[in-house]
């Protein structure tokens, strides 16, 4: 198969990628604070370290495309354009949240930006994206769908059914595996007998591409190539983005299972730093500008959190709303 990484992105796109990644990082750091301070109940799954995946894919999509993702979905939501307010209010279970407080951290969903849903059942989101691709195919809209999942999800039955059926029906859907080396606390090598998830693509006669998931430009390019192929009626592809989460699996996990030095090793290839360094050397950004950008985004995050805190909860009497369309 002949997916090839394109050229480097232009300055404007790089800037969009940088803003998206920094916004995700700052927002998630703030979310972690909220949870650790017990201001929010439940659990949360951060994608800090994986920002290039969501930002790079989002850059390659067009209006009208659809996305499904996992409980580790704040990054995807923000990269696709969810407002920080809607995100933070949802995180706190407020009526003005993206899902009116019904979804929460694991279910960030925003129809208006094509984000059809973040799923808390491993693998369940894959066929849902295929359904969006089917709609595009039946209606001939030219849109595609993308579904994100983890390395651990590549062992669940639905992964197999989805890739097979998508291939048979030549659906315009991209299967994007964010391989961060762990499923919860289990290293992939203990649950999966092969090194590269992309190698499974052959079982479904579709392209399988390994991509540097820390390089937002590589992610954008690989996605754009696969997307063009899908829009062209040539069917689905499997992309494996090699990446790493800096934090634990969820709120309470400190990551005792990591190999010593592993985290530091990955942090050397931090997706934000890597892009910033390239922009510095290409004269597209200087340190001061970057600090200003971070500062402005930090303000925005802070303001969104404060706003969300003051927002009201859904009224108790609305508890049975939205179960049925007639409600």
């Amino acid at each position, binding site marked *: 198969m002949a997916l090839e990484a394109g050229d480097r992105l232009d300055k404007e796109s790089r800037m969009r990628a940088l803003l998206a990644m920094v916004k995700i990082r700052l927002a998630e750091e703030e979310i972690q604070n909220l949870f650790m301070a017990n201001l929010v109940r439940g659990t949360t799954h951060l994608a800090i370290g994986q920002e290039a995946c969501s930002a790079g894919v989002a850059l390659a999509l067009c209006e009208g495309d659809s996305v499904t993702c996992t409980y580790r979905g704040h990054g995807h939501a923000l990269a696709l354009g969810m407002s920080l307010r809607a995100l933070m209010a949802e995180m706190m279970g407020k009526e003005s949240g993206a899902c009116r407080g019904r979804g929460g951290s694991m279910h960030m969903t925003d129809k208006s930006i094509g984000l059809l849903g973040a799923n808390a059942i491993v693998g369940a989101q894959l066929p849902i994206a295929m359904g969006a691709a089917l709609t595009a195919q039946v209606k001939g809209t030219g849109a595609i769908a993308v579904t994100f999942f983890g390395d651990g999800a590549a062992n669940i039955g639905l992964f197999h059914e989805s890739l097979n059926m998508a291939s048979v029906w030549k659906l315009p859907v991209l299967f994007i595996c964010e391989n961060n080396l762990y499923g919860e606390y289990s290293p992939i090598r203990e649950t999966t007998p092969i090194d590269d998830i992309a190698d499974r693509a052959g079982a479904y006669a579709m392209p399988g591409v390994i991509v540097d998931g820390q390089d937002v430009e590589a992610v954008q390019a690989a996605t754009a190539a696969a997307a063009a192929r899908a829009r062209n009626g040539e069917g689905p592809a499997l992309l494996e983005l090699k990446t790493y989460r800096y934090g634990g699996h969820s709120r309470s996990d400190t990551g005792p299972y990591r190999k010593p030095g592993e985290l530091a090793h990955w942090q050397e290839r931090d997706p934000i730093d890597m892009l910033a360094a390239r922009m510095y050397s290409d004269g597209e950004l200087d340190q001061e500008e970057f600090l200003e950008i971070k500062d402005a985004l930090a303000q925005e995050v802070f303001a969104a959190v404060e706003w969300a805190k003051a927002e009201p909860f859904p009224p108790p009497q609305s508890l049975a709303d939205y*179960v049925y369309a007639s409600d």
Partner: protein
Amino acid sequence: MRRMTYRQAVTEAIAAEMRRDDSVVFFGEDVAKPGGVFKVTPGIYEEFGPVRVRDTPISEQAIIGTALGAAITGLRPIAELMFADFIPVAMDQIVNQVAKYRFMSGGQFTVPLTIRASQGGGGGFGTQHSQCAESWLMNFPGLKLAVPATPADMYGLLRAAIRDDDPVIVLEHKSLYNLVGDVDLEAAPGELGKAEIVRPGQDLTLVATQQMLHRALEAAESLAEDGISPEVIDLRTLVPLDGETILRSVQGTSRLLIVEEAPRLGGWGANVAALVADEGLFHLDAPIKRVNMENALIAYSPALEDEIIPNARKIEEAVRQLLSET
């Protein structure tokens, strides 16, 4: 009015909705070119073509998930799962995804999805191919659940399901496929959530669905010869459950017998009993009785299968017994 089988009523309902609305699509295992393993959907593929009507791989989870994704993005899919016994294979997609999708999104999506499957015992298909699924599926708010018992109701309720903006599971009873009845092809779609008194009476209320409904009617016929007059109610949908019709009937008859093709524990009849024991207790002159499959399973052997599934004789006995209680 046309005379047709319950089987044909399915075909006609699907065809009618596909003609009416381009966004209706239909897929499942062996439903397109082969026309379905129960020959329920012949001609649909030929009329509507390979884009809207598709055979799938043997992948029940992907079938339902894809149908869900299509439903929230502008299609109205009809997904077939062949035997209702295979519903558990796709259970997560049905109960954690389809049922909850609208709710979890805070109402951003509607899920106009119809899931069809054939169910029920009596055909010698063995333990894994003879179950009724409605009792399990009642547990999941967000789903609607139709169990039509006649060709006319099949035509009416299946069209209602396809037009409904919520996910509806329509269970077709295998033993009824050859049942013949009059169907008005021009009639308005049925109404989900409305039971029907199919035989008025005053001595007791008999609540049933599908195969059991027909057996209850058979029992009623025979009881009538002895001057016993049961009021027979066909629930038609289990979610929404038409409690009003049941309660009104029990108010008139003071006695309730529920006939289920289901094991006793968990059966939908427990829900009907609980409803009446709550809102209609003071109407009752006798205990609420149920005829069902006890806590056992359907065996392959005809001797055991015929014994475990309630029949007219057992229903009749239960009625006589109940009338003797005070």
